[in-house]
């Protein structure tokens, strides 16, 4: 029961005026960062690192940064739903159904469910963090290259379920996504691939530029074709609050998303993006109305949004218990702790219980604050849609261009953004669903690097994937799912021809 006492202590720390203030600041800043396309929480936290020198207490500094981190998960869904613009990598999946809901006049519903789902998932995530941190952290560590390979493979299979009507088109985009991901320096061999002498291509394409281009700009170009198309986006404002029916359908999605996000978020390198994608695929599979997915199914928003929030909570686990940062934002927080003279690791909980419990307690508070912040904002955001498209579109373009530029401070990224926008436009005209492209782009490097690392580790033997328990289980899962998928496809083919 010392967990209980620890938590009480934590709350006494988190509820001090200064910590409350910084928690709130972090939440607001995080939401803003999540809404703004391009700028991610990692970069913002990096910008604020010098601030940690001046703030005396390490707890306060970490509370601020943590707030930014999970706050951005809340904000990211806003532009995804309203404008098909993923403000954050983890919000890309929300675009798929969220934006369609907005086009049908249900933007408010989508935003509301996203906020509520995020709150539930974030809070449950923190509870899980409170109770199960150490054993879960050990589990996370046991994911080495072979396990990551197997997991990513399962994820890639999920990409196929995002294909929409044509599996062939989905597979084509999957492969193109893998190729786009291989542009740049290959980490295993050190060779530069597909750069054709262009220095900016040496670092490869950035995920957010790709996603903003294909989803957001593609949509804008498509809408520019005709004034009538643009009107469809802006005139349907409709309901603001979710109806009972929406709530009933979402609750299981939220629950599943939370579980998925929590577990995948712990794995170093896994994170919010993959969990949102897996959640989407799972929701589509278990739904009674799978044909609705891609056209505005509320589970397609509730699940992934919950998943990415749960993942952001659980990604703190490796940091607080083992001293291992799982992603860029957490790495910053790790750095801030180091600067403050605190070494994160298994002894954090015993040597600095105030930091450990203070941060956890403020995460509970932070989630509440974010819910309170975001729900009323739904009404405000929805009004944004009323801005005439002639002004809205160029402003959005400016935001995305600047956002793109600021990722690596090079103008080339603006061109890349435009290029992807044109690509996204063509995909729409040719009836491709962009989902698999994005998933493959994210998973490609993980699959390839993990496989080659595993083979280096085993001296070339493929048995390494089957002799380790976790990877064997995941490979087995992959096989089962793949066969299942093939059977379903063959049956469909059989039905339509007979």
């Amino acid at each position, binding site marked *: 029961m010392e967990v209980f006492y620890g938590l009480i202590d934590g709350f006494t720390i988190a509820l001090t005026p200064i910590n409350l203030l910084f928690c709130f600041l972090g939440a607001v800043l995080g939401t803003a960062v999540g809404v703004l396309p391009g700028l991610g929480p*990692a*970069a913002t936290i*990096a910008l604020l*690192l*010098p601030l940690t*020198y001046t703030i005396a207490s390490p707890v306060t500094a970490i509370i601020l940064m943590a707030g930014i981190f999970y706050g951005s998960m809340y904000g990211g869904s806003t532009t995804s739903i309203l404008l098909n613009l993923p403000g954050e990598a983890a919000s890309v999946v929300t675009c798929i159904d969220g934006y369609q809901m907005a086009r049908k006049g249900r933007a408010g519903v989508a935003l509301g469910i996203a906020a509520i789902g995020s709150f539930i998932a974030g809070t449950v995530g923190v509870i899980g963090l409170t109770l199960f941190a150490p054993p879960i952290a050990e589990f996370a*560590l*046991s*994911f*080495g*290259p072979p396990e990551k390979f197997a997991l990513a493979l399962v994820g890639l299979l999920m990409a196929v379920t995002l294909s929409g009507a044509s599996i062939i088109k989905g597979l084509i985009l999957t492969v193109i996504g893998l190729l786009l991901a291989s542009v*740049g*320096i290959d*980490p*295993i*061999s*050190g*060779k*530069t691939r597909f750069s054709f002498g262009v*220095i*900016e291509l*040496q*670092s*490869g394409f950035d995920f957010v530029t790709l996603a903003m281009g294909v989803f957001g700009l593609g949509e804008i170009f498509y809408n520019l074709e005709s004034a009538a198309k643009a009107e469809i986006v802006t005139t349907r404002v409709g309901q603001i609050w979710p109806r009972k029916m929406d709530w009933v359908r979402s609750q299981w999605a939220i629950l599943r998303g939370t579980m998925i996000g929590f577990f995948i978020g712990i794995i*170093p*390198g896994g994170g919010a993006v993959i969990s949102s994608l897996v959640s989407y695929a799972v929701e589509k599979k278990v739904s009674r109305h799978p044909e609705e997915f891609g056209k505005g199914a509320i589970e397609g928003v509730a699940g992934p949004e919950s998943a990415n929030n749960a993942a952001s909570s659980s990604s703190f686990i*490796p940091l607080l218990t*083992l*001293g*291992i*940062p799982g992603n*860029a934002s957490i*790495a*910053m927080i*790790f*750095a801030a702790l*180091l*600067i*403050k*003279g605190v*070494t*994160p*690791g*298994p*002894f954090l909980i015993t040597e600095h219980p105030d930091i450990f419990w203070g941060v956890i307690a403020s995460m509970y508070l932070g989630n509440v604050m974010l819910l309170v912040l975001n729900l009323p904002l739904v009404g405000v955001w929805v009004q944004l849609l009323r801005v005439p498209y002639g002004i809205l579109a160029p402003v959005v373009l400016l935001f995305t261009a600047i956002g793109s530029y600021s990722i*690596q*401070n*090079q103008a080339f990224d603006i061109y890349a953004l435009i290029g992807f926008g044109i690509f996204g436009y063509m995909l729409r005209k040719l009836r491709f669903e962009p989902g698999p492209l994005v998933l493959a782009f994210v998973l490609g*490097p993980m699959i390839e*690097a993990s496989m080659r*690392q595993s083979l*280096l*580790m085993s*001296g070339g033997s493929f048995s390494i994937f089957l002799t380790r328990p976790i990877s064997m289980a995941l490979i087995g899962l992959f096989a089962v799912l793949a066969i299942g998928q093939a059977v379903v496809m063959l049956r469909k083919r059989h039905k339509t021809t007979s």
Partner: protein
Amino acid sequence: MKRVVAAIAVALFAFVAFPAASMAADAYPSKPVTAVVPMAAGGSSDLMARAIEKFWTKYSPQPLVVINKPGGGGVVGTEGVVRSRPDGYTLYIGYGSGHDVVMPSLQKMPYDPLKDLIPVARVSIHSVVIVTGAKSPFNSIKDIIEWSKKEGKPVTTAVSVKAGAVDIALTAFGKAAGINIVTVPFSGGAEATTALAGGHLMIGGGHPSEVIPHIKSGRFKPLAVVLPQRDPTLPNVPTLKEQGIDVATWGSIKGVAAPAGTPKEVVKYIEGTIKKICSDAEFQKTMASLYQPVMYQGSEEFAKFMKQATADYAKLIKQLNIKLD
């Protein structure tokens, strides 16, 4: 009404536009100085840069602003500095890292790190530390060598990036000791240390700032430091030379550089400011908490040092026949 709105808009616009498009002149520095770190935020170079950023305002009227331009293993950001205006307002922090001293011996570079950049000051050296997991049967370098020779199996080694300072150091160790070291590269030090912490590889290499937290928490055992002398942040860890292996590298050097053509007075000013920062007790304390030793060197000696370090790496690579396949 429309006219009023228009008037207000134009007034606001003018109010903002003039300062926005204003020019700068006068003595250096008369506007903020940009420091480019060609690596991801949160890494050891970045942290050092931000520490410098913080203490810079103590000794200079204008602030230092750190921006990250990661990509291409460090080449992209560095090239940006090389091609910038040599007026002292764009600097490079992290000079001397793998891509500056190791890469030129392995592949063609779009610029020459020794000629196209002026070494202004050295701030730190991030050595390569060889570590192993706490549960590992190895307790010293000798154990690794004996095991490998007896079992005849390769020693899997986690390294940060392919052909980086860590990779070269571990590969050199393997060749000098006559054992089969298989370096498994990851996408950076953090990922490599995580994999090692999970026990998926036998040994690994990293910089003190990456491995000391794990050593302190009992997850890693330090086996050796790959420097000519012991590292001040790890005084109890013997060097490879002390353990009988004649391999020493400079690890990853971290300094400040300016594009070639920067005026001498400007370089002197920056050098002086960095010197003051490095002598500052608070700065030293901050660096100590990051497990990064402060090892200041002025512009002239640093230039000599860089030439020496590059030559040393070139020699090592040639001797051991290390290639990018």
